[in-house]
């Protein structure tokens, strides 16, 4: 009841603000403030920055959780974080890293870069874009509030229902997982839809599909995967919500339900999800490697083909996470073959990167370092993946540290390295300043060494029989040395991350100003406009005359892109407070369901409906700006 009152007061308070219960002056001041500007923005560049900052915060939270786990495993028989606490750390680490760190940082890069790379002024649905961010953020916040409101979820990021139903995980923990992810998931789904429509509809004249930069291609395929994979998660979470909150029995085998259904649904979502987070990293790598090798990407068409093929096959391999469930030899073999087939397009990509570098004038700037570090690291992860894809062998590896080593090699060595490469590469475009190179190189080396020191020994821990998701091990079974090494390695990654944060603060204070073509090697459209771009991106929509549009013009001796339209006033969408209001509604509703306060949940849903109503009858047509002429007086 107390919680309910607090929520009510909060709602009334906010209602007062939004309806002008305070005097006009106050409202005016709020409206003019920078905070209000950021809270209501629909500009894809600002939303990109919001995604990046939120993603980094969650990345640090997830990192702290991981460090705690490795501290516990430093020595055998440790009692720092045991039992349920360890399970909570483990669950929250995985969930946070995948859903609240990797996904938003991918959306950060997509927001910051995709519209610029295709020569568009914004995404197709700026309002939906803002809504997607705020939904993700309120979902993430809700999930993390579990730490203070009765305990975090403790059933693993996969939340297998044999661990997650009420009788196995009492307390609200798993409810936070279910509702937090559901809300964040809606945000991700509409974000993905938005990018699909953007890439299909908003390409500049001449930007055909086979001229799209590879990052845009991967963003496109990733969005498609989001569109088809997330509904499976939505359904699974909804069913689990009914089981836990309303006494349904979808997954309770004592009542005729089946936990295998959860496993199927989770992995029908879960395997595409791992490709959702790796494909954009592939895209970043392709752009970075071709830029810093000063060469056209080798085998562009085969790269596009491989991307689409990986996306397609990604839906046909989910059972490789369930080999030991006992689905029978036929299922296992079919899915094993399909799984191994994915290694082929992945291999195509690796060779294309190597051939792009071959004979190029390579410059080892920080983004390129991450890209070069990525290739061998990711290949090792792919190797162990193919080992796991053999069912008889997987019966040995399953649920051991070997699997942990595999997915950290692909997720950290692949996705996180890719994200860092992308962040260093596009930081000047997002913020107008170049990140410091010296600090960047220190960041790279400490992180790379720390990473391998942490995860390489875990292969052997797995082979020596250490199960995953355990909070301790015994002496004299040959696991001490490797665990010790693994925990020491974490220090490298922690130092690297701290250096990165220092780099960010240093750069924001006194970083070097970036030119339009910040690296002076730019090949794609984003480097043809000032850093950071004006709010309308392109004063005149550019005319694209080939793959690597800017490079084509550079080769032809032109200083800038040829415009495709005369200079004229540009239509811009108005900022809106509805996205944040609607997300607040979902947040309150989610919290209400978790505390079993149906009235609070109803209030939240009412806020959602009111926001929908406000949006439907919002006749604001946006406004027009006059662009600065880039020829005279315009920046750069």
């Amino acid at each position, binding site marked *: 009841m107390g919680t309910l009152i607090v929520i009510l007061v909060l709602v009334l308070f906010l209602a007062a603000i939004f309806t002008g219960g305070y005097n006009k002056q106050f409202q005016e001041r709020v409206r003019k403030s920078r905070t209000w500007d950021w809270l209501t923005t629909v500009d894809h560049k600002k939303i990109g920055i919001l995604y990046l900052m939120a993603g980094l915060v969650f990345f640090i939270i997830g990192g702290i959780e991981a460090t705690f786990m490795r501290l516990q495993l430093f020595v055998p028989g440790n009692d720092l974080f045991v039992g349920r606490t360890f399970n909570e750390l483990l669950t929250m680490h995985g969930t946070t890293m995948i859903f609240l760190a990797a996904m938003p940082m991918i959306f950060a890069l997509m927001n910051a870069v995709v519209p610029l790379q295709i020569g568009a002024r914004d995404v197709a649905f700026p309002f939906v874009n803002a809504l997607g961010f705020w939904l993700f953020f309120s979902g993430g916040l809700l999930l993390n509030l579990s730490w203070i409101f009765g305990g975090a979820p403790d059933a693993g990021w996969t939340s297998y229902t044999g661990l997650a139903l009420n009788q196995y995980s009492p307390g609200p923990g798993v409810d936070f997982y279910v509702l937090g992810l559901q809300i964040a998931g809606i945000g991700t789904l509409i974000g993905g839809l938005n990018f*699909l429509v953007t890439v*299909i509809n908003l390409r500049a004249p001449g930007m055909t599909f086979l001229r799209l930069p590879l990052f845009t291609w991967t963003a496109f395929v990733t969005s*498609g995967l989001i*569109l*088809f994979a997330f509904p*499976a998660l939505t359904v699974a979470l909804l069913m689990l919500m009914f089981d836990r909150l309303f006494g349904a029995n979808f997954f309770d085998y004592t009542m005729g339900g089946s936990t295998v*259904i959860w496993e*199927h*649904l989770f992995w*029908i979502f879960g395997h595409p999800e791992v490709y959702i987070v790796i494909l954009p990293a592939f895209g970043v790598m392709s752009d970075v490697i071709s830029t810093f090798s000063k060469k056209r990407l080798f085998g562009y068409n085969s790269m596009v083909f491989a991307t689409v093929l990986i996306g397609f096959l990604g*839906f*046909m391999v*989910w*059972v490789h996470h369930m080999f030991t469930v006992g*689905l*029978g030899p036929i*299922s296992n073999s079919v899915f094993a073959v399909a799984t191994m087939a994915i290694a082929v397009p992945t291999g195509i990509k690796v060779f294309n990167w190597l051939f792009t570098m071959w004979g190029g004038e390579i410059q080892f700037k920080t983004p390129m370092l991450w890209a070069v570090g990525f290739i061998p690291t990711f290949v090792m992860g792919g190797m162990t993946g193919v080992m796991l894809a053999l069912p008889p062998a997987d019966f040995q590896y399953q649920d051991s540290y070997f699997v942990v080593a595999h997915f950290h090699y692909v997720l950290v060595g692949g996705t996180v390295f890719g994200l860092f490469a992308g962040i260093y590469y596009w930081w000047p475009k997002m913020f107008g300043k170049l990140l410091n190179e010296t600090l960047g190189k220190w960041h790279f080396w400490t992180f790379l060494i720390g990473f391998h020191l942490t995860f390489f020994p875990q292969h052997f821990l797995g082979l020596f029989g250490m199960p995953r998701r355990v909070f301790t091990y015994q002496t004299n079974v040959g696991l001490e040395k490797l665990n010790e090494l693994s925990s020491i390695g974490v220090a490298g990654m922690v130092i690297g991350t701290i250096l990165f944060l220092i780099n960010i603060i240093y750069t924001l204070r006194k970083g070097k100003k970036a030119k339009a073509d910040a690296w002076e090697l730019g090949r794609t459209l984003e480097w043809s406009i000032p850093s950071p771009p004006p709010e309308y991106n392109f004063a005149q929509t550019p005319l694209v005359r080939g793959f690597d549009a800017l490079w084509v013009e550079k080769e032809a001796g032109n200083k800038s892109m040829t415009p495709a339209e005369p200079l004229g006033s540009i239509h811009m969408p108005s900022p809106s407070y509805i996205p944040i209001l609607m997300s607040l509604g979902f947040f309150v509703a989610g919290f209400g369901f978790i505390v079993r306060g149906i009235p609070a949940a109803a209030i939240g849903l009412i806020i959602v409906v009111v926001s929908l109503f406000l949006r439907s009858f919002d006749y604001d047509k946006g406004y027009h700006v006059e662009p600065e002429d880039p020829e005279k007086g315009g920046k750069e």
Partner: protein
Amino acid sequence: MAKENNQAISQKPAGAMKHILSFVFMIAFTAAAFFVVISDKVPSGWVVPLLLIFAVIQVILQLFTFMHLDQKGSAFYTIFIVFGIFVAVISAVGILLM
């Protein structure tokens, strides 16, 4: 946008007729589905197959008239819908058979 659509429809009365007709069909099929479930004249073994058939017909009508799949330039929608169906079928068959 809305205005253009209106014009297109008023120029082609056949298009408007088609919409109304399929709207009537929609209502009829929905009513029929209710009837199949409520009445005790339909043998219980037939209920689910009948419902499925009605649903499929309705989805097709829906896609072609109201979602404009019959118009030109809908290649992307077709690709995405077909792939969506493909994924859904694989998942459903996978879960049912295994």
